């Protein structure tokens, strides 16, 4: 028999197997998304639950959730998509507290968790007796927060932009910090265990940290700037532009890793540039294409990550090692308490005007879920760093913490936000949106009715009769909206701000159009665009200040 033909057939079989797994994941994701929206459960949490249920029955999803798969293939698009929607003005206003939480907080969290694990191993849980470097490695990997489940819920519930940016910003930056700290802890651990290699001083550790942190941001910033100002500005083809952003998301990660700097932070910087400069430089069509594409990409990747988390978790092992998971959970929750409440308190003393409201701190504490990055780092551990037993214990503890945060915190954060009064979409606002949507729909129906009559598809009598019904509906819908505004006059203000934003968007498009048609010079174009963008950012600021005032009230 022909060896190559056999090998080809085997590869084909494996490819079909992978394809089948992918088809099942996509189908399940669509189904889960549909159901979770109805029962108001975070989609990602629902996926984990389905994954857990599937792990008890034979299933054809044969994809290993490896560290490489997560870090190289799944994380870059997730981070890129998240940063695309981060508005620089809002991020900049909160950068101090975000960096404090992401850098100092992750460092502090690593120490606290590492300390608790070390002490617990020496006293309460002998099977967890690990070297301090190993405990710190676990502390670092478990300190990376994952906002996917929380942010999706924030969007649904209409939580303030500031709170979303605080949670999302902290998470995006602390992913990179956690990875750097994790690698430093591993290096220290390897040096301590084998006595080989150069030992580390604290100052060397800090220099190394800064090199990897800033180097990653620099790589992403350069590539993001180039793509935003060269490709997205000059190429007018939505497909080519979208393909370039895909190359940027993966390319910035790979290039940064080649330079031994943070790939995750490179993607963060690249995404921020594209989201804030590139998106403004491109046509409305490309903007829509880019948003749709990345939203879909994040949906697919998230579906894979969270379904596979459920599938890979071994519940029987959890039962046998409850004490290990309990120690990890206590350490994680305690460190989160110190980091969130402690650091935001310090920040409040330094920047009193930008103090994080107490309600936000509660949401940030309970919203500190753990996810893909923690798992990727745990799965990257091998017996070459620590003993096989410790590696297994750390992976088990990581899965335990991730599942707890997703299933317990992820399902209770919504009610907590409602209890804290942080859900910006109040009942009156929901009513307003419903009335407005009905008005839009009724008017669209009315236009279609006119078209049907003009095209001679319906008779004059039918048109007249239906037209009367539509007119009556429109009148009553208008009346309902007016009555709502009488009861809740504050809705007027938010409607005005929203309308103003839409108008500015239209003005911006008109300026871009004038530039593309050669009616205005580049200088005038940039000046007007900057002015319009400042006005748009000002509206965000006004909205945020008003919302912050309401949250404090």
């Amino acid at each position: 028999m022909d060896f190559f033909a056999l090998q080809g057939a085997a590869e084909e079989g494996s490819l079909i197997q992978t394809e089948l797994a992918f088809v099942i994941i996509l189908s399940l994701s669509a189904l889960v998304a549909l159901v979770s929206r109805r029962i108001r459960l975070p989609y990602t949490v629902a996926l984990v639950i389905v994954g857990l249920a599937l792990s008890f029955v034979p299933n054809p999803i044969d994809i290993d959730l490896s560290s490489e798969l997560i870090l190289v293939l799944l994380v870059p698009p997730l981070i890129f998509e998240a940063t695309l929607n981060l508005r620089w003005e809002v991020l900049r206003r909160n950068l101090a507290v975000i960096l404090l939480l992401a850098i100092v907080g992750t460092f502090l969290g690593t120490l606290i968790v590492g300390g608790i694990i070390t002490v617990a191993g020496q006293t309460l849980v002998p099977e967890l007796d690990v070297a301090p470097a190993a405990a710190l490695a676990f502390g670092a990997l478990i300190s990376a927060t994952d906002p996917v489940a929380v942010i999706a819920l924030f969007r649904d519930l209409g939580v303030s932009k500031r709170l979303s940016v605080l949670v999302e910003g902290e998470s995006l930056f602390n992913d990179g910090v956690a990875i750097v700290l994790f690698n430093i802890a591993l290096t220290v651990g390897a040096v301590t265990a084998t006595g080989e290699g150069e030992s580390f001083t604290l100052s060397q550790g800090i220099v190394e940290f800064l090199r990897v942190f800033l180097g990653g941001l620099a790589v992403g910033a350069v590539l993001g700037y180039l793509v935003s100002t060269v490709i997205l500005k000059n190429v007018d083809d939505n497909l080519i532009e979208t393909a370039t952003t895909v190359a940027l998301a993966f390319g910035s990660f790979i290039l940064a890793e080649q330079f031994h700097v943070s790939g995750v932070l490179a993607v963060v910087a690249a995404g921020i540039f594209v989201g804030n400069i590139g998106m403004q430089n491109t046509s409305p069509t490309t903007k829509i294409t880019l948003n749709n594409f990345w939203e879909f990409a994040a949906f697919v990747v998230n579906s894979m990550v969270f379904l596979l988390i459920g599938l890979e978790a071994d519940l029987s092992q959890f039962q046998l090692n409850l004490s290990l998971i309990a120690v990890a959970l206590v350490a994680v929750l305690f460190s989160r308490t110190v980091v969130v409440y402690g650091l935001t308190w310090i920040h409040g003393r330094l920047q009193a005007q930008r103090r994080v409201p107490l309600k936000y701190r509660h949401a940030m504490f309970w919203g500190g879920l753990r996810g893909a990055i923690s798992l990727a780092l745990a799965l990257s551990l091998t017996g070459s760093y620590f003993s096989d037993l410790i590696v297994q214990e750390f992976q088990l503890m990581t899965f335990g913490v991730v599942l707890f945060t997703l299933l317990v915190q992820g399902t209770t954060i919504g009610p907590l936000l409602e209890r804290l009064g942080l859900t910006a979409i109040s009942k009156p606002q929901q009513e307003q949106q419903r009335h407005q949507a009905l008005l839009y729909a009724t008017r669209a129906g009315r236009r279609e009715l006119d078209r049907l009559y003009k095209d001679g598809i319906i008779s004059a009598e039918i048109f007249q009769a239906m037209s009367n019904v539509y007119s009556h509906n429109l009148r009553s819908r208008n009346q309902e909206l007016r009555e709502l505004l009488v009861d809740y006059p504050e809705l007027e203000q938010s409607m005005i701000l929203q309308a103003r934003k839409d108008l500015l968007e239209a003005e911006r498009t008109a300026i871009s159009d004038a530039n593309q048609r050669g009616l205005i010079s580049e200088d005038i174009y940039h000046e007007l665009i900057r002015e319009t963008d400042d006005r748009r950012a000002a509206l965000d600021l006004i909205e945020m200040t008003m919302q912050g005032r309401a949250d404090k009230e």
Partner: protein
Amino acid sequence: MAGIVCATRGGAGSRAVQEQAIKYAQQQECDLIFLYIIDVSGMDEADERLKPAVKEELYWLGRTLLQIAQRRAKNANISSEVVIREGNVQEEIRRYLRESSATILLLGAPRGTTTATFGDDAVEQMASDIQDQSGVPVEIVRPQEV
């Protein structure tokens, strides 16, 4: 010019306070002024670059809100004036009251607040301060709880 001054910012109490002001203007047959203050003090120093844009947008928002108020007065056959000032809310209101020799100031209160038994309501505190320092009586109008 003596008259009723209605300070408004488009909050929950805006409609109630405007309606009350219109009612007083009808009863007393005096001038009605709707006042909006652009206060950017909440936007701290780091937003210096954006401050001009913030001011312009707040001005835009203020003009729109005042036009809505003016239209409400017109529907009740009351002619009114609109005034936009810039600065600290409390100081600017006081300054305007002195300049316009107003007879009464009406302020709207946020939803959910009640007449503060112990005087701890922020709006009530502001009203009390303005009244003490300007000598013009201040009335707080609270929105109906729905």
